[in-house]
């Protein structure tokens, strides 16, 4: 079973040389810490910055330089700032290569829900709807089950959708899963997690073909 950093570490392996990447709030943010040093990647944040660096040292923070999670950040040489319309031109225009974001539910059809719990939580979709509607390459980072132990990989989402048929890959604390036409295709198991345990924790149709390797992190 992976922790949040473990999920981030596994996802980091999906990041390829030359990728522009948008990281959502939460686990996705951690991915930046684990990307290989020998490849070139640029991080975009939809509030208007490309080429984000690490968080600032104390005393170097600037209220005018933040990421979409409203955290203070720094920029690397070659970075740029731009307005919101241009930022979403990058996203909608498919210039961003990879989007990594969290989810409350994912359906076997690739639908995703992550912005609203009716009558309860109404934070809003932020840039997530734009990201999932346009990105060709979307990875969801989340726990396999919710706090009540219920599967978050469903036949059909029960919460209001963020996007339809858009998720391609899911990395959870238990497994790496690809969304294919027939459902959730199990690609890898987390260390120490059995196929049976993943099956139990997955409500949607799980496709198991051949031997499922353990993740190599």
């Amino acid at each position, binding site marked *: 079973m992976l922790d949040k950093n473990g999920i981030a570490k596994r996802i980091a392996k999906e990041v390829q040389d030359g990728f522009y990447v948008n990281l959502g709030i939460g686990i996705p943010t951690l991915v930046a810490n684990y990307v290989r040093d020998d490849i070139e990647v640029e991080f975009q*944040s*939809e*509030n*208007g*910055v490309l080429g984000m660096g*690490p*968080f*600032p*040292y*104390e005393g170097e*923070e*600037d*209220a*005018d*330089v*933040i*990421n*979409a*999670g*409203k*955290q*203070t*950040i720094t920029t690397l040489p070659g970075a740029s*700032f*731009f*307005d*919101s*319309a241009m*930022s*979403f031109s990058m*996203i*909608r225009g498919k210039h961003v290569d990879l989007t990594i974001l969290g989810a409350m539910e994912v359906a076997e059809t690739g*639908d995703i829900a992550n*912005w*609203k719990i009716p*009558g*309860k939580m*109404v*934070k*809003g*979709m*932020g*840039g*997530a*709807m*734009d990201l999932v*509607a*346009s990105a060709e390459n979307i990875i969801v980072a989340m726990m396999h089950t919710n706090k009540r132990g219920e599967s978050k990989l469903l036949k059909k989402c029960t919460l*209001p*959708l*963020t*996007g*339809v*048929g858009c998720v391609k890959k899911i990395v959870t604390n238990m497994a790496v899963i690809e969304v294919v036409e027939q459902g959730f295709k199990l690609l890898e198991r987390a260390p120490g997690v059995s196929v049976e345990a993943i099956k139990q924790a997955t409500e949607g149709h799980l496709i198991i073909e051949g031997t499922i390797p353990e993740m190599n992190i």
Partner: protein
Amino acid sequence: MINKKVNNVQEALKGVTNGMTFMLGGFGLSGIPENAIAHLVTLGINQLTCISNNAGVDDFGLGLLLQKKQIKKMISSYVGENDEFERQMLSGELDVELIPQGTLAERCRAAQAGMPAIYTPAGYGTEVAEGKETREFDGKMYVLEHAFKADFAFVKAWKGDEAGNLIFKGTARNFNPNMCGAAKITVAEVEQMVPLGTLDPNQIHIPGIFVQRIFKGAVYEKRIEQLTLRQRD
């Protein structure tokens, strides 16, 4: 040069009244028109519709107008980090229209650019698209979204001159440039008012033609919402 400079926030906000629709720049608490918001609280006008990516926090930004119940409707993309907002929304006191962030930006830009509506894939197949026209282009589905109509746009820039030219700083830029010229009257507040001719014409983010009034904000708190630091080795 056409002079857009006014002396203070009082002059800048002349004409705002109950029931108006405002656009307000900023992302989180970064790049928000602090002085305009503070004066709107003082003026006490209400029944406002506010178009702004976020709704501030409980004790800063648009949260100040929410506390005084001056806002009737919010059009935003993300409204977390604000308990009073959530209370008013769930109780039905506050009308809330949540829309995708890119749609918000583009509906502002459409108003600025004289375009009546735009097509975006964001929100297709979700409740955001309910009741809206959808259309296929090249095998992909898009939602028709209309340009905003607003009475005032309040934006905050870093530097400006009396011609109304604006330069923004860092990620405090965000929605501010897209809202300039997107309302009947655009009011820009700046941290620094520089002499005419000192801004490089090549490096102006928003030409003065999009701005009707400009003033130097009396004070800027520039609060940080999520101070996040790295440990020194």
